[in-house]
């Protein structure tokens, strides 16, 4: 692919990367190629101080390429520290020393809460999903939460979750703060658009549409009513050539990030 042209995975990675800065201290869980690429890209461009703990274990890892699992040792090379999970990781996460986490879910609601446990009734599920893993924990502990989805459709962006595996802004408004939890979801990047959260209602709000995507298209793909920003809706900024080059050549030369896109 030439500079100037780019694919949706590249746009998502670059958009997310630009949301991070030198104060970002992040880690990642399973099947998290998009945020992993974004952390690495941000670190290699505008945010050299950014901290990323590969699989929550390998701090400042510099993998030459990614593997087929973002939870495995294939992305630990070049780390400055291999941390112990209960003693180091959970202390840093609870203490706010890690401040950034990205998750996705089988279902996402307007407040950025996610479901990764069941589709259908909990006791007689249509599909038993893996479970939330650390979502219920980290959603409560980490102040800067980022959501992403490579398949923006009404089965994922739903009016009501079948189960709340992880908390975003909770029931909206001040709910999260009232629970004594720090921060909350900042951004949701999908294959169609970028959304943030209305500062009062904490409901998902369009920030920008990806080039070539219409507002109606996003509305149809979303199971709840989206808040619209004041004024004209922006178009997501295109990646720079240098960002694309670094992503393609240095961050993820074997395009493992495409594993998140159903062929």
């Amino acid at each position, binding site marked *: 692919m030439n500079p100037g042209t780019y694919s949706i995975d590249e746009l998502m990675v670059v958009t997310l990367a630009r949301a991070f800065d030198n104060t970002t201290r992040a880690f990642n869980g399973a099947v998290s190629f998009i945020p992993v690429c974004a952390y690495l890209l941000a670190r290699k461009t505008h945010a050299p101080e950014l901290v990323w703990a590969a699989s929550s274990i390998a701090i400042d890892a510099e993998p030459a390429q990614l593997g087929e699992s973002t939870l*495995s040792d294939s992305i630990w090379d070049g780390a400055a520290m291999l941390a112990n*999970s*209960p003693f180091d990781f959970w202390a840093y996460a*609870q203490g706010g020393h890690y401040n950034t986490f990205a998750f996705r879910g089988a279902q996402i609601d307007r407040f950025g809460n996610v479901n990764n*446990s069941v589709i259908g009734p*909990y006791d007689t599920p249509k599909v038993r999903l893996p*479970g939330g893993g650390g979502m219920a*924990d980290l959603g*409560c*502990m980490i102040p800067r939460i980022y959501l992403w989805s490579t398949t923006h459709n009404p089965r994922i962006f739903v009016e009501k979750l079948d189960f709340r595996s992880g908390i975003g802004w909770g029931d909206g408004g001040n709910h999260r703060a009232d629970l004594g939890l720090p921060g909350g979801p900042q951004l949701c990047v999908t294959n169609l658009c970028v959304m943030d959260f209305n500062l009062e209602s904490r409901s998902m709000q369009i920030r920008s549409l990806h080039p070539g995507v219409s507002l109606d298209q996003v509305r149809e793909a979303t199971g709840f009513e989206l808040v619209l920003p004041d004024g004209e809706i922006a178009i997501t900024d295109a990646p720079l050539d240098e960002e694309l080059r670094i992503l393609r050549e240095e961050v993820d030369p074997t395009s493992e990030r495409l594993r998140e896109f159903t062929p």
Partner: protein
Amino acid sequence: MSRMKKTSSIEEAIARVPDGATIALGGLSMNSTPMALVRELVRQGKKDLVVVAIVNGLGVDWLIAGGCVRRVVSGLVSFEGMGLAPNFRKAVEAGSCELEEYSEYLLIARLRAAATHVPFIPTKAGLGTDVIKLHPDTTRLEVDQVSGESYIACTPLPVDVALVHANEADSLGNVRVNPKLVWMDNEIVNAAETTIVSTERIISHRDFLAEPHRTTYPRFMVDAIVEIPWGAYPNSCFPEYTHDTEFYDVYSKAAAQPEKFGEFWEQRITGPVSHTEFMGAQGGTSTLMRIRRTST
């Protein structure tokens, strides 16, 4: 006078696990799970086990396929990007296996409450989620009277037998996990009545004396040591070998065809007697070449 040897055959070690026991599996997802010990549980036909597996996949799936499990206590069971754990999914959907679902840290807190003999451990994990509503007895929502802060009180989760995999051990039961204990194995070992360790190799006690800071578990925390090279296969054992993606592929494909799965299961998993035979059934040397890690 010399000290007791804790080395054991895999058959004897696993014979210590009674039907109905609460066992806990070490490792995380595709990393460092004691798969050879799991296979022996299946081969010995254990029944009604309660399986604590904080973040797991294939280990739980094998135990369910083997008919060993009454209940799974877990935060997540999957094959990551390679899909859902098929037998786990089927059994829970069919109601033939109970699932007691928590999140990762709620389980760590429950294990630590058991390990440290306190009535509960408080955490903010789980606040505002449906996870804590599933088990109001063991993850109780409470409010601190003084600060007014909400927290979840996680009650003790005692474990009968912890099964973990390590890199090195001596015959006295001292154990070394390389490079250090990266997952949550210490939490289950500390909470367990009995601990069985499979190890890539048994080394001399002198090696432990030479680098005592690298010891992960002291002998008095360990009840049986079983030497099993590639004992975590098809999962990884850092930094020696990685998980075998090809195994996951064929396993998932076989599970998708219920009429053929029995044959696969017998040929590849339950049929082989020794671990050497088992590794042979997985492709032998060419598989070992494929999974070995070259960088650390």
